[in-house]
């Protein structure tokens, strides 16, 4: 039987090897990811170095064990500042930045909505309420060595997600649209309660507001160690389901036709993204912008494939957060600015720049 002649084919020659270009694009994106790794390392190194006490690069490398040498010749105070204060702070900022960016990318795909960010379904409002309650009632306990504020924030964040999820569920099906609306409703309600509490917070006002604006002031290795398992778990879930995120972008129905167990995928992705967000918010407060902007900017240069978008966003988010925190510490030193302020101030114009120059950046996609 003769293959039917297709109109467009006749006019355009119909030649081409379909996946060569795709493969080339993928290599370019892999290169981009490598560049982002380097960028993160450089940014982190600079961030560790800057501050009230500055350390020469050679010493820094020696302290970090990158370059062999006898660290004992170094000033032990400087060494402690680097290893016990700045390094955990940089690592925590990187984890939080990566978490928010990955969660943002996942939520944007899940909701097929470019305005989605890690906080859409109320995680941040829940965490804020938990943290505010802990501070105002001066709840004082330690859980696995971590203070009451992050623990309550984390618990309240996950509780909120669970509540929103249950509200959006009919039978065994969760409508993404209902989830979004329920998240917004619950989020606004909880935010109102937080505002009310802030209004009556008296002498603790400063502490509460500062927490809400977000920052890495109290960071130490304990925070990093505590946050790490959740970070790994959440990242694993999203990374493992990156293909499903791509398919969900085609619509839930189509994803199902292509063999995706849609409800299970949604549930896992929601859990992973919420876990990352809750971890980020409970360790460092509500830092806006990163989770919304980074996935967009990365998508513009790296394309929509989540197998690349997720790691690239994580790296870009981490870099941005580390840089923002370094700025927050140093710009008005010794006064520390809230990191969220920096991310918004620097992220906004940067994003506009990317938006205006997206054609030049097509190199990667």
């Amino acid at each position, binding site marked *: 039987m003769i293959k039917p002649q297709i109109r467009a084919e006749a006019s355009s020659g119909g030649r081409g090897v379909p996946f060569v270009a795709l493969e080339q694009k993928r290599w370019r994106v892999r290169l981009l990811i490598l560049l982002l790794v380097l960028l993160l390392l450089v940014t982190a190194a600079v961030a560790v170095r800057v501050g009230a006490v500055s350390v020469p690069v050679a010493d820094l490398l020696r302290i970090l064990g990158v370059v062999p040498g006898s660290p004992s010749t170094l000033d032990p105070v400087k060494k402690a500042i680097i290893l016990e204060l700045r390094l955990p702070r940089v690592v925590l900022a990187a984890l939080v930045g990566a978490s928010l960016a990955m969660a943002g990318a996942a939520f944007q795909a899940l909701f097929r909505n470019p305005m989605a960010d890690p906080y859409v379904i109320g995680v941040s409002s829940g965490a804020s309420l938990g943290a505010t309650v802990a501070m105002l009632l001066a709840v004082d306990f330690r859980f696995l060595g971590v203070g009451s504020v992050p623990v309550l924030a984390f618990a309240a964040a996950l509780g909120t997600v669970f509540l929103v999820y249950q509200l959006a569920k009919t039978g065994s099906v969760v409508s993404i649209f209902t989830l979004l609306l329920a998240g917004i409703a619950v989020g606004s309600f909880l935010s109102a309660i937080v505002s009310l509490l802030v209004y009556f917070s008296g002498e603790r006002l400063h502490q509460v507001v500062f927490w809400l604006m977000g920052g890495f002031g109290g960071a130490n290795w304990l925070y990093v160690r505590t946050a790490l398992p959740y970070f790994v778990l959440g990242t694993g879930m999203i990374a493992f389901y990156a293909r499903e995120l791509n398919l969900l972008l*085609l619509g839930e129905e189509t994803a199902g036709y292509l063999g995706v167990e849609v409800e299970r995928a949604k549930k896992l992705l929601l859990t992973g993204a919420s876990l990352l967000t809750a971890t980020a918010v409970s360790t460092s407060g509500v830092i806006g912008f990163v989770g919304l902007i980074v996935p967009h900017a990365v998508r513009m240069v790296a394309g929509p494939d989540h197998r690349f978008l997720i790691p690239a966003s994580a790296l870009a988010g981490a870099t941005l957060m580390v840089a923002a925190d370094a700025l927050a510490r140093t710009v008005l030193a010794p006064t520390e600015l809230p990191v969220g302020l920096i991310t918004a101030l620097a992220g906004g114009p940067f994003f506009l720049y990317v938006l205006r120059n997206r054609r030049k950046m097509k190199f990667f996609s």
Partner: protein
Amino acid sequence: MPRVLLDVHGITYSYGSVPALAGITFQVQPGEMIAVIGPNGSGKSTLLKCLDRALRPQRGVVLLDGRDLWDYSRRDVARRIAVVPQETVTEFDFTVAEVVLMGRQPHLSGLIRRESPRDLAVAREAMELTSTLHLAERPVSSLSGGERQRVIIARALAQEPEILLLDEPTSHLDITYQVEILDLLVYLNRIKNISIITVIHDLNLAAQYFRRVILLSGGKIVDVGPPEKVITTPKIRQAYNTEVLLTRHPGNGRLFVTPLPRKSVEMMSGGFRPTVHLVGGGGSGAGLMEAMFVRGWKVTAGVLNRGDRDWEQGRLLGIEMVEIPPFVPIGDEAHQQNLTLMKKADCAVLASVPFGQGNLRNLYALEEALAGGLPVFLLDESPIEERDYTGGIATEVYRRMIGKGACLVPSEVSALEAIQKRFPPNRALSR
């Protein structure tokens, strides 16, 4: 006994309290091409969704190779059944190559689920078959409707399915693209032996491209079978509540469907619709039959031999006829039935049909009815002598009828006008 690939057994589906399907049963054999037709909201999309495990019927089962579809995993179903949905989301930046590769999803395994060279080869072939290779690097969002549809079909083919389900793959497309897509389906069906079930709104395309048609209405099957059996005037009227004109396609002899606009049917027929009994045969009355039917008149016919062109036309239009086997002369019983139909009619028309011994009784029946007061119109396109193979008997009867007041009309148009004048739409005429 041919293998049954898909066994749809008494499925019933309701959206909440809204019933959409009720007791649907049919079977699909490997390599079959089936069209699902029916009016909007008749449950076509719902049926397709039940066949791809997207919706679970409340009652009844769908068996794939004898096993309940719901005992398979989503992924296992996706390896065997592919779907081209009615609506597709395309607001994303994936390229055609990426989207087609996603069709390999159900076949990927391992932790990384990387596409193997074979996956790429299958996707490439799917693009070749659908002539989308040259679009590979284009973002799907930039394609035209027809190109996009072919890309979605390519993605479905990349699944290497045994069954391809399509929901209105040709709506939104111009006629060239419609034909392209259907030619493509036929081609895929032949060379890959893929069973194809597609919802299609165009009855002509359904009749031309498919050997099997399922007509749905109100969630029930009106009929299943070859288009000649399913697409008939009464069944279409029952399902769609619309009059259609059925004829034979001049080129390939397949069915040809023309919907009759309700307005024009009413306008042309006015308030009163005369019943006209047509005497013809051998195709002499087919044109007139169609023209009267289009005007909304009730048409009966007789006596006709089965297989005759006039008989064929009458069957397509679903009119009441007295019929006898081919090449058999008119017997007493048929003659009486013919007289009965004439008695019920408001007038009778004789087409320019040749007369022989076999059909002479049609002429006698007309003479008898004329004597009983029935207005008779004689369509006299060619002289009766030239059509008389009875040695003058037919001519003699014909002349007698003219003498007794039968009205001679020279052409089909004047026949229609004469009848119209005799039965004006605004007043019912007692005869």
